[in-house]
C-alpha cells in the first residue's frame, strides 16, 4: 500500500514542479514580451514558480 502511494506522490510532485515552472515562467515570458524587457521577468517567473511549487509540494505532502 505504502509503495503505491509513494509512487503516486512522486508523480504528483513532478506534475506540480512542471506546472509551477510553466505557469509562472509563462507569465514572466508574457510580461517580457509585453514590456520589451530582456528575460528579467522570465527568469524571475521561473524562480518564483520553482519556489511556489516546492512550497506547494511541502504543503501537500510534507506537512503531516
Amino acid at each position, binding site marked *: *500500500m505504502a509503495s*503505491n*502511494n509513494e*509512487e*503516486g506522490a512522486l*508523480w*504528483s510532485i*513532478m*506534475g*506540480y514542479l*512542471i*506546472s*509551477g515552472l*510553466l*505557469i*509562472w515562467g509563462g*507569465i514572466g515570458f508574457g510580461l517580457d514580451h509585453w514590456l520589451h524587457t530582456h528575460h528579467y521577468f522570465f527568469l524571475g517567473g521561473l524562480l*518564483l*514558480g520553482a519556489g*511556489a*511549487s516546492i*512550497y*506547494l509540494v511541502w*504543503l*501537500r505532502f510534507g*506537512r503531516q
Partner: protein
Amino acid sequence: MHITGHLVASGPGFVPPSTSDFNLPSIVGHSAYTTKPVVAVFFSIILISVFFILASRKAAVVPGKLQFAGESIYGFVRKDLAQEIIGSGFLAYVPFLFTLFVFVLVNNLFGIIPFIQFPTMSHVSFPYVLAIFTFVIFHAIGIKKQGVVKYLKGIAFLPGVPKFAYILLTPIEIATYFLIRPVTLSLRLFANMFAGHLLLLVFIGGGDYMLHDTHLFMKILSPFSFGFGIVMTFFEFMVQCLQAYIITLLSALFIAGALVDEH
C-alpha cells in the same frame, strides 16, 4: 519489412529511422481509417474480447489455465491498483481501470509481437483520447461526490495557507489539475512507445544495413547490432508493461484524489 525496404532502397549511406517511419501506408486502399495503427486498435479490441470471454465463459471453482490467466490480470488491477489506492467504494471504478490497463498493455505489446511490430500508442492521438477519458472521469467523480463549488474550491484553495500565498499557488493548482495531468498522462505513454520503437528501428535497421554492406568487416559486426536489437526488445517488453501499469496507476490516483473531501 517496411523499414528494410526503405533503408535498402535509399542508396548509399545509412538512413537513420525518422518520424516518417511512423506514418505507415494504408493496408486497404488509401483510406486514413485502414492504416496499421487503426487496424491494430480494432484487432486489439477483438483479441481482448475473445480472450476474456473464453477465460470467463466456463468459470469454475478450480480454474483452468485460461481462466487463471484472465483472473490473474483482473485480480492484479482490482487488488493491487483499485483496492489499494482508491480504498472503500473502489469496485465502481474497477471496470474502467481494468479496460484501460488491458487496452494499453495489448496495444503496447503490439510493438514487439511479430508481424504487427508497431506500438499503437506511438501515435500521440491514441494516448490523448485515453487521457481525455481519465480527465473527464476523475473530474466527473469529484463533482458528483462533492458538488461543483466544493470540488473546485478544494482544488484551487488549499486549506491552512496564508491568504497572500493563494496568488502564487492557485494558478499552479489549476494548471496541474486541468492541463498538466492530462498532458503528462498522454505524453508519457506516447514518448515511451515512440522512443522504444525508434530504438528498435535503429538497431535492427542498422544491423540490416551492415549485413548488406560491401565491406566484410561490416558484415561481421552486424550480429552485434542485431543482438542489441534483441536485448532492446526484452527491454521494450518491460517498458511496455510498466507504461500500461503507470497510466492505470495514475488514473486510479486521480480518481482517489477526486473522492477525498479534504486535499
